[in-house]
């Protein structure tokens, strides 16, 4: 049945889909041409294949830009006939998040990856000269495989890839509205972006991460080219700067993710060992290990196979981690896996392509590989660098083996579950590896390539070790790490040693050997990063301790006391750790609902020494189906105070449909029954949460919208309410108009009070005031959790220092290339 649908904007989608197919075709052309160009005899000086390969790649680049432009056009103009726009945006989404909507879906992620790979490919075409043909063959192949992922076309009965230009009515939904030609007029708005993604970190974290993933292809392509073209040794030096770049960017992307989680997610930390998080670390660990072995090989000629293997496997792991995150296999073991797009086998195929090519090349070239027959010196830098790299690889192996439990379950039909305390498990095992690795990053600094004077080495490394032990002992007691298991103290020692030993190298470098400083700086950064992570995660303290609470059962009360969430009624201060904390109010900005939490810290003399407001927020997406809570953090130099709202009655997920109807007319059910008080001027009424003073009577009270005639009497009772250290004024009015008596009660929302001037008792010289109090459950409250993270700035500072170190190394290795 054909329906002539109305109001659809099909052009950008058709155009976009055309570009998708063009990108695929162009990358295929580029791959084939480069392949034949690489097979040619270089002496022949025939550039026709090469030229064709370049044209293909440029065409591919242009198509990707075209795809991006079309998709952006669709999202920006809210064309909800497209599934992508409908799923990830809504009319109320702020413009700056439109950008992050672009990579909200998996298709967008692939696009981003293709985009960066295209950029890098163009740089390679420009820079690599004699390596261009074989290297670009691999890059073009990678572009080709990625292009199939976003194809979204049926070939035979198989649906290949998932296109971002899928129409809503074609997305497989069986909704009757698609029978209407003008169904679009019923679709008023998109589903909107997941509120936890509405964060500026989501604007920069994914592009960085995907640039990192995309950059991993370059060292891989060099390694493949080296094997393929039998230029076994030459590729190593070429690949080092690119490997450094990939490690730098991917590392930054990962830490940005951690920072995003810490700043705006509510799991209360920066790392949770979630499978998706782990997956992004695999390639990084392997390539960092590979990088070190590349340098070992370059300087000593040893460990050729290990270097090649690590570089090759790191790119296979990029694909494996995409598979884990996108195939839906993680199922119930991950909080934030993508949904399954039915691309399971497609992704498996992706892994296999990039796994089988290196395996074939390694096997066919095995006998020719320059594997050294000599044994390394025990006291040489290359040997211990090699050992350290292998341990990095092992730590990655453990992560993979464990994160892949759902994969093993799928393959072997087992039913293993992750350990019950997953975080602790990972922390222990990974700490063991980290201790060895950090110690080695320190020790190797005192060793030289080839051969080292043993006595001198033992003395210097020993002296620095002793010094580090002292620093560690001091640091451990200051930060309270000494209460943690010995394992973590050892890790602290290893990290401090790494910082100290590399600090020495840096100090020496400042005196002259400056070109060595890059690695020293990166190691210092890595050491600080570990120190920060260790202290912050190990000694973090929940300060919103809760010892109160009505107990539901005695059994329950015994466990886990104190509890971690604390209840704050509006305007009622609560003591929490050193702070007096008050929930003072809430404000709404768009979809964000901010809660003002007033922190006050008193000195011993009772004076306020610190006074600030934190504004954690709760964001709901517009259809009222999702809420997400975003913390706010007070940053100090040496620690952070993290606050997040876990529950509130201020806003609910239910749609507020009867708003505005029942208000005013009958709100008595919101209050406890009235308590009547007879008071004279100057008298005090006490109530549950404070007291009220009758200051005086205002004989000329006015009531809005009711004009007073001659003989009418309007009296206002001037009341002053004192509660929780605050004072409010209220003036309920008593009105006699003609023969009728009215009273106009006054509400003080903040105090949860309603005051009614009920009667005048002239014979007693008193008046009657009715006091309505809100019951506890009707009062506005929030439940919050506050955590103190000590020394977390080491983690972020360490990351920045590490990135600087990587940058310095890139410049150094690049220079070495030019000198040759």
């Amino acid at each position, binding site marked *: 049945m054909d329906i002539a649908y109305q109001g659809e904007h099909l052009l950008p989608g058709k155009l976009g889909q055309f570009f998708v197919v063009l990108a695929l075709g162009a990358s295929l052309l580029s791959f084939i041409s480069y392949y034949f160009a690489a097979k040619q005899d270089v002496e022949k000086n025939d550039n026709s294949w090469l030229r064709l390969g370049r044209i293909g790649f440029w065409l591919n680049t242009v198509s990707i830009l075209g795809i991006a432009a079309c998709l952006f056009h669709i999202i920006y103009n809210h064309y909800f006939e497209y599934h992508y726009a409908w*799923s990830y945006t809504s009319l109320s989404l702020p413009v700056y998040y439109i950008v992050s909507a672009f990579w909200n879906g998996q298709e967008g992620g692939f696009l981003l990856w293709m985009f960066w790979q295209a950029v890098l490919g163009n740089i390679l075409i420009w820079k690599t000269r004699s390596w261009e043909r074989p290297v670009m063959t691999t890059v073009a192949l990678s572009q080709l495989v990625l292009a199939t992922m976003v194809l979204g076309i049926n070939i035979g009965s198989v649906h290949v890839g998932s296109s971002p230009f899928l129409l809503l009515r074609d997305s*497989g*939904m*069986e*909704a*009757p*509205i698609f029978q209407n030609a003008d*169904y679009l007029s*019923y*679709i*008023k708005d998109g589903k909107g972006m997941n509120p936890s993604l509405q964060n500026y970190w989501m604007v920069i974290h994914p592009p960085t991460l995907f640039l990192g993933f995309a950059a991993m292809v370059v060292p891989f392509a060099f390694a493949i080219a080296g094997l393929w073209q039998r230029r076994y040794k030459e590729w190593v030096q070429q690949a080092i700067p690119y490997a450094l770049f990939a490690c730098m960017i991917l590392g930054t992307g990962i830490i940005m993710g951690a920072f995003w989680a810490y700043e705006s997610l509510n799991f209360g930390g920066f790392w949770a060992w979630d499978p998706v998080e782990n997956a992004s670390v695999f390639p990084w660990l392997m390539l960092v290990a590979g990088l070190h072995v590349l340098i070992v090989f370059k300087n000593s000629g040893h460990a050729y196979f290990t270097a090649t293997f690590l570089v090759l496997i790191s790119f296979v792991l990029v694909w494996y981690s995409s598979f884990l995150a996108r195939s839906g296999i993680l199922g*119930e073991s991950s909080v934030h896996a993508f*949904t*399954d797009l039915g691309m399971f086998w497609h992704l498996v195929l992706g892994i296999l392509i990039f796994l089988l090519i290196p395996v074939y090349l390694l096997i066919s070239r095995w006998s020719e590989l320059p594997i050294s027959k000599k*044994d*390394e010196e*025990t006291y040489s830098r290359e040997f211990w660098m090699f*050992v350290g790299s*292998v341990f990095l690889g*092992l730590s990655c*192996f*453990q992560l993979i*083996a*464990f994160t892949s*439990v759902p994969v093993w379950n799928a393959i072997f039909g087992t*039913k*293993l*579950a*992750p*350990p*019950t*305390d997953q975080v602790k498990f990972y922390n222990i*095992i990974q700490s063991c590896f980290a201790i060895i690795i950090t110690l080695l990053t320190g020790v190797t600094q005192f060793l030289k390539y080839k051969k080292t004077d043993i006595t001198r080495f033992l003395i210097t490394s020993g002296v620095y070790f002793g010094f580090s032990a002292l620093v560690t002992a001091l640091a451990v007691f200051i930060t309270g790490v000494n209460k943690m298991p010995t394992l973590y103290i050892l890790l602290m020692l290893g990290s401090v040693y790494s910082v100290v030993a590399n600090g020495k190298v840096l100090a020496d470098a400042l005196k002259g050997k400056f070109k060595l400083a890059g690695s020293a700086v990166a190691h210092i950064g890595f050491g600080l990063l570990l120190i920060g992570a260790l202290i912050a995660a190990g000694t973090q303290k929940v300060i919103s301790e*809760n010892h109160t*609470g*009505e*107990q*539901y*059962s005695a*059994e*329950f009360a015994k*466990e886990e006391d104190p*509890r*971690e*969430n604390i*209840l704050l009624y509006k305007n009622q201060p609560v003591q929490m750790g050193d702070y007096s904390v008050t929930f003072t109010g809430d404000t709404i900005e768009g979809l964000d609902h901010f809660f003002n939490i007033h922190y006050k810290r008193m000195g011993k003399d009772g004076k306020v020494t610190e006074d600030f407001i934190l504004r954690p927020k709760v964001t709901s997406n517009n*259809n009222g*189906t*999702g*809420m*997400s*809570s975003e913390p706010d953090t007070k940053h100090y130099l040496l620690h952070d105070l993290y606050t997040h709202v*876990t*529950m509130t*009655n201020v806003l609910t*997920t239910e749609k507020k449909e009867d708003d505005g109807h029942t208000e005013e007319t009958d709100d008595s059910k919101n209050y406890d029954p009235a308590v009547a008080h007879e008071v004279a001027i100057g008298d005090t009424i006490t109530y549950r949460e404070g007291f009220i003073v009758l200051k005086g009577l205002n004989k000329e009270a006015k009531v809005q919208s009711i004009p007073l005639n001659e003989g009418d009497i309007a009296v206002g009772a001037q009341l002053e309410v004192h509660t929780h250290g605050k004072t409010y004024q209220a003036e309920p009015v008593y009105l006699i108009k003609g023969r009728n008596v009215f009273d106009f009660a006054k509400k003080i929302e903040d105090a949860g009070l309603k005051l009614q001037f009920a009667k005048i008792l002239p014979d007693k010289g008193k008046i009657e005031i009715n006091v309505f109090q809100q019951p*506890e*459950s009707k009062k506005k*409250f929030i*439940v919050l959790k506050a955590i103190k993270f000590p020394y977390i700035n080491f983690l972020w500072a360490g990351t920045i220092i590490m990135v600087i170190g990587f940058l310095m190394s890139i410049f150094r290795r690049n220079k070495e290339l030019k000198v040759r």
Partner: protein
Amino acid sequence: MKKSSIFGIIIIAIAIAVIISTYSSSSTYGTFNDARETESELHVVGHLNKEKELVYDATRDANYFSFYMKDNKGQECKVVFAGTKPQDFERSEQIVLTGQMRGNEFHASKILMKCPSKYTEDKLNVTEVSAKKSASL
């Protein structure tokens, strides 16, 4: 014997140790019945019984949340969690609990829930409803 071979053997030994530790420290997915029989913590997969009461009253105790869950064998059990009610809990279609049995209650230390994803039938109904709504306006 070459030093590198010795080193290789050590590496292989560690790798095997890692694999064994992976296998031995992993727990199992079980049912409430399994939980009754064991002292240790385990994972239970199931879904929320939406007909029975869900208790969370912050004004009484901000850290007490209880509900009834049916495990995959259809057995029902009361679950208690020392914390706040997770957002959108009622909408969950699958729950994975980590914890252990205390008397007749299952005390969860962790709750992982899966909400209906974008591509399942559930969401379609929502679409339909909201589409009708805007049509009637």
